Every structure is written in C-alpha cells, then in structure tokens.
C-alpha cells in the first residue's frame, strides 16, 4: 500500500521485476525494473483515469440500498449524466422517455395502469427524497412542485408496491432524489430561452405574436461549519403554444445536511413553489385546435405548494440502522373560471420510523407510518383522513446466487373520525437467481391498493354541465402484479426483458347515478393488463450510446363470472365479456442515440405510441398514433455548457387527452454554468 501521496518503498533481492500500481477509479500501470545489488531505483508510474463501471444501486424497490441485479422487480434508473444531458423544465418531461411510463394530461401511469382517469387520484406513488408528493385533496401529482433542476437521480419501480409504500403504489413507485449539498462551494446557473414554431396548418395560426418561453435557475451549495447547505431558486415563464397555455412559475428550495456524530446523517428540506397558469380544458374545434371555446378564454388557475421533509438516519454498526422521517405537503389552488370560482387547501403530514437489521444471510426491515390529510375546499368540503400502517420485509440469501424477499404491510384508513374505516393487507414476494455472471432471472408478485382521495369521495360541484355528487361509500382500488424478468449484462450492453400481468379491481371512474341527472365517482372497472417489455442500453463505438425501450400490452376490462379462491388466484381465471381498456396504446417505443466527442455532444430521441383503440368521451374524434422526434446538441467550454434543442422536430400533431393537441415544435437554447 502506498502512502497518501502515492509513494512506496519495496525492498527486494536483485533481479528483474514488474511493478504494477492499482487504484480504484484508475487503470493499472506497469513497468519492468531491473534491480542490481545495493541499488536504489526510482520508479514512477502514471495512472490514467478510468471511471468505474459499478453495477447501479437502487433503494426504492426494497427501501434499502441494493444492486439493481438483485432487485426482484423491473426498475429503471435515470442517472445524473442523462439528466444533465437533457435539461428539462419539469419532471414529467424526463419520465416520458422511461420505458413503460405513460403521461396523459398530467396523469402518470406505469404499464397501462392509468389511461385518463378523469378525476381519480394517482395510481403511481411519487416520492421526493423518500417523502410522498401526492396532494392531500385530489390525490394527484403537481409536476411543477418538483425542482427539476435539482434532481440527481430518478428511480422507477414498475409493479405493485403497497407492501412497502401503502396507498397509491398500486402500479409502481417513482422516487426523485434531489442533489445533496456539496463539500466545496459550488454555484450553478441555468438559463434557457426559446420559442414555439408557427403551427404547421395555417388554420391553426391563432396568434400573430411569437410564442416565447424562458427559465432561470440559480443554486448555491457549500459547507458552513458542520452543515452542508444548498439553496436554489427558479423562475419560469411561457406564453404557451395555445390559448390559455401561458404560465408563470416561481420556486425556492433550501436543504441542510449534517452528520451530528459518526454513523449518523440528518437532513432537512424546505421547498416552496407557486404557479399562475391559464386553463386549457378542451379545444374550440378541430378546425381551431389551439383555441379554447370563447367563454373559456381567460380561465385561470393559481396554485401554491409548500413541502417540508426532514430525516435522521443512525447506524449502530454495519448490522443495525434506524431512520426517522417527518414531512408535510401543503397545497393550495384557486380556479378563476368563467362559470365557477372554486378553491381548495390541503395539508398532508406524516412521519415514518424504520429499522434495518442484518443477521448473516438474513436481513429485516421493520417500519411504521402515520399520515393525515386535512382538506378545506369549496368543492370537496372539510374532511380529515388518517392512515396508520406497519410493515415488515425479510430478505434471505440462501446461496450467493439467490435472493428471496418477503414483505407484508397493514394499512388502516379512517375517514372523518370514523365515518368510514378501511383496512388493507398487502403482501409481496420476490426472488432473483443469478444464472451466470451476466444473467439474472427474477420473479415477483405483490399487491397494491389506492385509497380514494377526498376529491373522489366528496366532490360536490357542477363540472362541464353535469352535477357531480359525493360518494362516501367509495372503496379502495386494488391490484395484484406478477412479473418474470431476465437481465443480461455483457460488456457495454444491458438487456432487460420482462413479462408481466397486472390485475385490477374496483377502478374508480365517473359514473351516472341511475335514474338521476347526477354523476359521481364509483368503483366500476375490473381490468387485466398483460404485456412484455424490453429495455436495451448499449455503449457503441466512436462515442455513441444507444437505448431502446419497447412495451407491448393487452389492456382489457371485463368480469369473472364465478371467481373462486383468493384474489391473487383470479389472475388464472378467464376474463369474460371483455373489451379494450380506454386510453391505453398497445405499443410504446422509446429510443435514443447519443454521441459524445470531446466537448461536443448530440442526441436524437424518438417516442412512439400506437393509436388508442378506445376512448370514452369523444369516440367519434379522429385518433392517431404518436411519433415524436426530439434533437439535442451541446458544447462544453470550461465550466459552461451551451445546448440547443428542438422538441417535436417533425411538427407531428396528436392528442394524448381528447381535444387537447400536444405541444407543437419548439426551439430552446440553454446555458448551464458551474462556478
């Protein structure tokens, strides 16, 4: 072993020797040396930097750090390099290129879990640094409340995850990790500006003004004594490509991190965001697809979000650790619509305590959570929801090649002091078998559920000409997910193939109350989604890097005439009188080719979704597949990166949600500087 400066002394008998130096993160250096009797020979070895290709480690699938190859369920990771190469305004822009993830009108789904749920809460749980970012009133996700510029890594777990995470983790979990304070002072600045192209069809040219947008983000990080500090802020403004498409957003974030004593870590994050935006509900007509009906012109929504997250982790040695977390997520919105002025305030607050222990080949995770939603709204009324949960997970390695995981969670939800009480038990099972050093086989099954949000239970309002009334008897949506997968890593190629089946019960949808002019949310749909997913990434010659993700699904809704046995066995029983689940494309493809040569980089990205076979609101409307090509180029000069980006290069026009034209072609120039 050399000293810290790399110096070493070796005393050897005379002769010819090969001296080799090894250091983590560097390639080996060798030199042949001839030693004569009584000689002292000075040898200088120069090590060349060679970044380590360690297998990725993820934490979301099992709530503990684990190599990706040992995770029994499909998991995608978007790393720092990808996030840096593709600067995005909001998190949903990044997620669109993750295989198996779909976004429709701000609703996220994994493997066809969510078509367009029209008011139902999210069937995917979003976590930011371990804390849920689901709103207390609608159970949805505010994408603008996530600090896109401060994201370090994203993990997407595909499959029911309620055995560890409880409600909302019905189809999967997306976890965002924000940047940690740096040890040395660091200032980071990003400025972006751009414009939308003119609509391709002259009939759609509704504005003579160039539709522009810009964003400005500044962040500073340093150590202040024992504290790591990160502060950041941003402003984003856009005219929008369509009427009522404009927005103005502000965001501030502060993060503190400390290690009060060895083996411990504490962090505290405060995040505030506000947005003032126009509301585009649906187009005036297909002939005027970028305009809203005249009466809706000027409809606006103002919203504010405040998030607090604090955690403390304590390790009592390599075998035992504990974690305590507390969080609050306060949201506020106010609609200024031509026919209504509704407002809502919600506060979701919760805490979690968790212990992790290792005993030889066995490891345990044991935890408990308490969360409370408080809502005060002109649309939903005043309500309180309590969730209390406990969970346990065991991991056993019976051999170096095999990992088995078992988990169980109990959730109890109490609505308005006991008016309605729901209990859920969510088990899971997972296994990985290393077939060869390159190939890992995995299998998993798990249960998911989603407790109805306050909005689903208690909406009392006029919406689009219909009167929506409360349904306090709404039951939780439930799911079982099954998956078998194979992961193969060879040199620069990683291939992952998954076969899956997801069963859903009691999906919530708006439904007419029989014999009355009323609409309410109701448990309506029994569904089954079967599919296959292929995820390929490859390092190619000449500085090229490619990735391809393809998902094929068969999404059906129907009924089982005479179900027998427990719920998880119904997956084997045929679905009768079945028809296509609405708003689900059967084929999805995302592909990208990236090139890096010296300071220059370029990337072409493509995403495709086949035409949806069934929609519910306007089946008579024209439906088309999606073909979207984005181009990115950049050059790095010292600490600055200039990049240029064209989104929807081909000006391809499609709708993700009925009567809502997706963004037209836009051009963005970005300057990122690190000081």
């Amino acid at each position, binding site marked *: 072993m050399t000293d810290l400066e790399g110096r070493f002394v070796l005393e050897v008998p005379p002769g010819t020797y090969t001296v080799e130096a090894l250091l983590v993160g560097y390639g080996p250096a060798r030199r042949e040396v001839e030693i004569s009797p009584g000689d002292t020979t000075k040898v200088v070895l120069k090590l060349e930097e060679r970044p380590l290709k360690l297998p990725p480690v993820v934490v979301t699938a099992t709530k503990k750090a684990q190599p990706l190859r040992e995770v029994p369920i499909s998991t995608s990771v978007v790393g720092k390099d990808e996030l840096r190469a593709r600067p995005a305004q909001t998190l949903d822009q990044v997620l669109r290129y993750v295989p198996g993830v779909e976004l429709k009108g701000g609703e996220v789904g994994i493997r066809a879990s969510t078509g367009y749920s029209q008011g139902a809460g999210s069937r995917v749980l979003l976590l930011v640094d371990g804390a849920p970012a689901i709103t207390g009133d609608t159970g949805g996700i505010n994408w603008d409340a996530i600090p896109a510029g401060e994201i370090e890594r994203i993990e997407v777990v595909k499959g029911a995850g309620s055995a560890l995470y409880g409600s909302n983790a019905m189809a999967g979990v997306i976890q965002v990790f924000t940047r940690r304070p740096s040890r040395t002072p660091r200032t980071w600045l990003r400025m972006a500006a751009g414009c939308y192209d003119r609509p*391709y*069809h002259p*009939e*759609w040219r509704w504005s003579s003004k160039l539709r522009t947008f810009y964003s400005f983000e500044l962040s500073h990080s340093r150590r202040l004594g024992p504290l790591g500090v990160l502060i950041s802020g941003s402003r984003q403004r856009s005219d929008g490509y369509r009427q009522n498409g404009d927005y103005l957003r502000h965001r501030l974030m502060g993060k503190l991190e400390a290690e009060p004593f060895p083996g411990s870590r504490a962090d505290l994050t405060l995040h505030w965001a506000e947005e003032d935006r126009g509301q585009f509900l649906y187009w005036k*007509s*297909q*002939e*005027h*697809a970028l305009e809203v009906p005249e009466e809706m012109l000027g409809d606006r929504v103002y919203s504010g979000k405040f998030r607090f997250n604090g955690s403390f982790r304590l390790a009592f040695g390599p075998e035992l650790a504990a974690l305590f977390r507390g969080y609050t997520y306060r949201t506020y919105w106010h609609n200024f619509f031509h*026919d209504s002025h*509704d407002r809502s305030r919600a506060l979701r607050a919760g805490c979690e305590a968790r212990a992790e222990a290792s005993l030889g080949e066995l490891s345990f995770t044991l935890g408990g959570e308490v969360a409370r939603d408080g809502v005060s709204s*002109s*649309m939903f009324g005043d309500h309180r929801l309590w969730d209390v949960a406990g969970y346990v997970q065991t991991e056993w390695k019976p051999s170096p090649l095999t990992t088995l995981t078992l988990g169980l969670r109990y959730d109890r939800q109490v609505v308005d002091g006991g008016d309605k009480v729901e209990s859920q038990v969510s088990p899971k099972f997972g296994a990985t078998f290393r077939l060869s050093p390159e190939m890992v086989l995995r299998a998993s099954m798990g249960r998911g559920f989603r407790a109805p949000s306050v909005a689903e239970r208690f909406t*009392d*309002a*006029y919406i689009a*000409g*219909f*009167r929506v*009334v409360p349904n306090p008897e709404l039951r939780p949506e439930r799911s079982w997910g099954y998956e078998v997968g194979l992961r193969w890593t060879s040199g620069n190629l990683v291939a992952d193939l998954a076969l899956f089946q997801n069963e859903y019960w009691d999906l919530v949808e708006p439904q*007419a109350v*029989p*014999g*009355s*002019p*009323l609409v309410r949310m109701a448990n309506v749909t029994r569904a089954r989604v079967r599919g296959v997913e292929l995820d390929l990434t490859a390092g190619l010659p000449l500085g090229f890097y490619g990735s391809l993700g393809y998902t094929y699904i068969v999404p059906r809704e129907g009924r089982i005439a005479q179900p027998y046995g427990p719920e998880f066995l119904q997956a084997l029983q045929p679905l009768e009188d079945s028809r296509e689940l609405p708003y689900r494309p059967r084929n999805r493809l995302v592909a990208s080719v990236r090139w890096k040569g010296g300071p220059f980089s370029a990337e072409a990205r493509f995403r495709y979704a086949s035409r949806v076979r069934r929609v519910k609101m306007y*089946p*008579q*409307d*024209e*439906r*088309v597949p999606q*073909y979207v*090509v984005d181009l990115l180029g950049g050059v790095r000069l010292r600490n600055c990166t200039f990049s240029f980006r064209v989104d929807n*290069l*081909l*000006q*391809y*026009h*499609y*709708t993700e949600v009925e009567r809502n*034209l997706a963004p037209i072609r836009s051009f963005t120039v970005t300057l990122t500087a690190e000081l």
Partner: protein
Amino acid sequence: MKKVRYILLLSAFAACGKGIGPTPKEVPELGVICGTVKFLGAWPDSTAEVRVAVYEEYPPKNFYDVKAFSDPLPVGVDSTAYKVMVSPGTYGWIMVAWRGEGRFWGPESFLGMYLDPDDPSHPGEVTVGPGEEVGGIDILADFSKRGQLPPEVIEVLEEQGVTYRPAPDGRGLGPGTGVPRR
C-alpha cells in the same frame, strides 16, 4: 451513404405536419348520422349549448346513457346541419338537447326528436353500418315545448324513482335541481 442521408432528410421533411389536421377525418369503423335541425320559437338568452344526442333504444333504459353527442350546434340560428359519428348499429332515439348557462343536462333539456317518416307519432329508428353515412335525419326542435318528454320516457324515469314534471320554464323538476351550488 449520401443517398441514405438524402432519403432520411427527405422523409423527415415529408413527415412534417402529419397526424391530426384541421379537417377532421372520419374514423373508418364509425358511421355517421346527419341531417338538419330546424328551430322553432325564440332562443333563450341563457342558452349555453345545444347538441344532438343519440340513444340506442327507445325509450332509453337510462336517460343518461347517451351513445353519442354531436358537436355544439350554432346558437341563435333558424336551422343548421348536424353530424354525429356513431359506432355501427341501430339507434332508436335521436333527439335535440338544450342546456342553459350554469345548468346541467337532464330531462328538461329535451327540445325535439327525429320522427318515423311513416308514422310521425313515433320516434324514428336509424341503422348505420361501418363507414356508412345515413343522411336526411331531420329534426324539429321547438323551444316552446322544451322539456316536454314523450310519455314513454317519463314512464321510464318514474320507474327509476324520478318524479318528472316539466316546469313552466321548461327546466323540469327532479333530483338535483334546486340544490344550492357550492
């Protein structure tokens, strides 16, 4: 190689502007019911929307189970052409529905219906095949008779526990009406 690049570039530009365009293309597996709506009487100032609604059967088992709606018809006109795209099948009730500002669709929305040309005392039935356009489905919509549903439909509503009596202003009385707005 040059040729490939040229083809790629050309196909990229040829692809521009594809997808949905300003002129709606008909979905091949759907059919079309079209005709003219002639309005009688004065248009109420509070009109928010008027549409043609298509039901599978007459009388409908559920008044709110509308199989297809037309786009909103122009307001304030004497007559207008309309078009409703529907799945292939037979439709027993095609009616014109009105909605006032701040009001919802309901039995009181009824303005008039397509009548059987051979027996104008009954609603007309229309059968549409895939990609077929069935024209001449003309409807008389009379504002003075707003909400005056055929007795068979009222019977069905009453069977479902809805007491429906058209009010003098045509708004009707039934569950949901008169509930204060939050």
